[in-house]
């Protein structure tokens, strides 16, 4: 996220990538003060999913928001009128209206880097090597067992996102027990 902010020169109030903190469960205190617990917590690093059926392009009145030859979704600022429909339509909150530009602004998959044969800056930045980039086919081959949605993300049927996730054990807990997003302010949600 901070690599993206550095590369795209985004300040504290603007972000193309966010990390959602999701947690649940509780600690039970016994009379002798000992603790038993079923607490879980996990993070989801999320940006634009460059969906197969993007909600943002469907509502764009000028065609500025479009899916390009690479399959990447981004707004052509020469056509964008800053109406903000895309920001309301996207269930992942990927587009936003840039207060300075008065135009829609979002992750474009680092298309210039990708065209140069590089990966997006976030993928190259991840210290845990938890991010990867490629076609869905390539990624499925490299990472067997991925899914396209985990709690609390929208069901994949909404936009057919090009996002593949290997769920952690904690995400399985969330599916069974529920929980909540605990960093809405930080994630801009």
């Amino acid at each position, binding site marked *: *996220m*901070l*690599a993206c902010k550095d*590369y795209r*020169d*985004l*300040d*504290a109030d603007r972000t193309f990538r966010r990390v959602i903190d999701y*947690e649940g*469960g*509780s*600690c039970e205190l016994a009379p*002798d*003060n*000992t*603790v038993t*617990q*079923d607490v879980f*917590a*996990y993070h*989801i*690093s999320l*940006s634009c999913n*460059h969906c197969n059926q993007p909600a943002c392009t469907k509502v764009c009145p000028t065609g500025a928001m479009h899916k*390009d030859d*690479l*399959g990447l979704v*981004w707004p*052509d*600022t*020469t*056509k964008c009128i800053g109406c903000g429909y895309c920001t309301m339509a996207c269930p992942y909150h990927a587009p936003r209206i840039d207060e300075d530009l008065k135009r829609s602004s979002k992750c474009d*998959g*680092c298309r*210039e*880097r990708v*065209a140069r044969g590089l990966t997006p800056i976030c993928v*190259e*930045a991840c210290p*845990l*090597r*938890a991010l*990867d980039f490629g*076609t869905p086919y390539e990624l499925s081959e490299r990472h067997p*067992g991925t*899914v396209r*949605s985990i*709690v609390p*993300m929208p069901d994949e049927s909404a936009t057919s996102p090009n*996002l*593949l*996730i*290997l769920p*952690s054990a904690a*995400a399985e807990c969330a*599916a069974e027990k*529920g929980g909540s*997003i605990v960093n809405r*302010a*930080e994630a801009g949600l």
Partner: protein
Amino acid sequence: MLMNETTLSRRTFVKGSLASLAVAGAAGTGALYGCSPQSEGGAGAGETATTDQISWSQCNVNCGGNCIFQWHSQDGKVLYMESDNTGDADLQARACLRGRSMRRWLNSPDRLMHPMKRVGKRGEGKFEQISWDEAIDTIASELKRVIDTYGNDAIYVNYATGMYSSTGKQPGLRLLSMLGGYINQGYDYSTNMLQAIMPHMYGSAANLDEDGNHVTLKKPATAFSPYDAVNASSFSEAERASDLVVMFGNSPAETRMGGANAVWDFAKVREAVESRGGRVVSIDYRLNETASGHPDEWLPIRPGTDAALCSAIAHEWIANDQVDKEFLDKYCVGYDEDTMPESAKGQNKSYKDYIMGTGYDMVEKTPEWAAPITQVPADTIRALAAEIAAAEAPFIVQGWGPQRHTNGEDTTRAICMLPILIGKLGLPGTNTGQREAEPPTYLVGGIPFSNPITKTIPVYQWVNAVDHGHEMTATNAGVMGAEKLNNDIKFIWNYAGNCLTNQHGDINYTHEILADESKCEFILVWDTVMTDSAKYADILLPDAMRSEQLNMQTQGYSEFYTAVVVGGPAQEPPAECRSSYDVCADIADKFGIKDDFTEGRTHDEWIQYLYEQGAEADGNMPTWDEIKAQGMYKRALEPVIGLEAFRTDPTANPLATPSGKIEIYSETLAEIANTWELAEDEVINPIPVFTPGFQGYGSVNDEYPLYCTGFHHKSRTHSSFGFIPELEQVARQQLWINPADAEQRGIAQGDTVSVKSPAGEIRIEAKVTPRIVPGTIAIPQGAWHKADMNGDRVDEGACVNTLTTYKPTPYAKGNGPAHSMIAQVAKA
């Protein structure tokens, strides 16, 4: 449409998936590579800008990562960063979120731009711009005055870790050494209690002669250090051969976040251990970020009670005949009566007597005894004891949080007792109980210096040494290298550090000492921004950032990799910022020793000299011209097993303890306990026991009913980066409090609360979370103190050291109160 928190529609989860998270942002269809991008507008700043220069540099703060930067700049101004994207992806020193924010620091409007002198009261933060000539004249004349009036042992170089580089703090140390020296720091704020006490168990350099031979055994022996690959095993060894990893207060995902640092090592450890059917256990008062995603790993414990847990595990092993008596008899002193030294025989002073209730406090350390202390249920303790005993190669490892308590000297040894009791150290896949090993391979050194003064104070004692140094002795204050101090500290040299107040402890008390100009007479501070410590400067100097000069530093803490980076400047220093080397050379000139100081070399020539010295010693490194062109050299290192030589042949390879063995019972400590001047509540124990410690277990009361502690936070490295808005936005300063404690006080998520301790009061936002054990609150350390010190002193910046009480620990005289506090919380 909002992100739906209750979406529970059908999903397929993969059983046994190992990666914590592999998010794959992928484009839709067709070939991704080799296509021309569209020409429409729309890209962001970094992407559209053409850059004309790539400069190598490094992150030089104190997480130990030293991650690698490639600055992309245009017209002499950095635009964005790439980190290490070279070679094998496993071996890339990828900067963390903080390193990736370094441009915000470099180009911050808050940078100090000019030399300044204090014009208000000390600590008020009122300064006036002066010339470099005036600054250097003042520093030189104050140095001369203090040396002439009091002697060099009135000069102290304060602990400071904001700048790790071959030419960072060393020029100042070299200059002061040439002027007759200064009082040394003993230990450090990271490993204070551990570093002081562990040599009594695993070996002390004090028992070695000049040739490195044991003084009585007359052969080479191993002395303890927390910073080597001799006394502990590497994480890569756990990856290679362990089937159970037990972590005590160790969270590399928070303390060592960079991509060639322990966080990446540990991700590989988890995957490998789980592939062998093993698992990770994370014993911590928080479900920390290392265990996030892996809920089965968290074993919650009350902070500061690890020694009670370890004692109860020991009890189970002894009761079930699971200890390795053969190992204990052959390699150790003091487990039971069989190996007690003559001076302590027949007095029920052994470790076994302590555990089984026949010695010391005559209390049997059963799981039922430990449960209410630790908050770990007795059955859970029994299960953990059985799990460790059943493991083929348990890798037992402690972070530095457990020892950073007022009972840290005992806690750190108690954790080490686990591998010792079952003889699981020095063997494949095991560890000594210490933190994972640090690299044996530093490729380059720093500018050399040799302090002629050997007198040393434990690092946390400097405030006492300002206040009443002349009363401090070896036996009442832990003074080393001399029987006593002759002087109070009159001159403080503080380069790139925030340990005058923010990162030291008990800010309100320390303020009183520093504000009294009759005590410390002169304070010199160099920094890049106005830290809380900088406000106490008499002269404040603006330092150039490392990315604004030629920078060189060898690797940090990661043990499977070593590297050196040479590069820069990526952009010129702003305004009047200068390198510390050039400034020290100018001060040296005032004393007529400039030529001795520089040896005829410029700053950049020193770097070339140091690099070539390192390259010659190493034999594998590129030439100077090559490294200048390529910017960075790195290579992988092999896994190491801690104390392997000792385990293989303890007679040929003894430890540097008096006996040459692991001293569970230390005669030296017994002697110290008898001879040092200790307060009634201060105890030094010859064996590792559970003691509550000052403001530890059992000390809460009606006024302060909660335990309170601090932890390392994603948004800062200690206090470095603490002023960067982009980091604060994504990882805010929040008080962790369990719902059970919050509800009692009517506190909801996001409320601003007041936290009071016996030492002070802060304001902070509440994060109400089950990820912290009930009865304890926690505050991310390193936030910048922000209080009206002439008014109510309520700290709106929520620095944890507003709450810590200044009381050095019994033996190390260290910063145990950093994590041992009691407090009350209320809605503000």
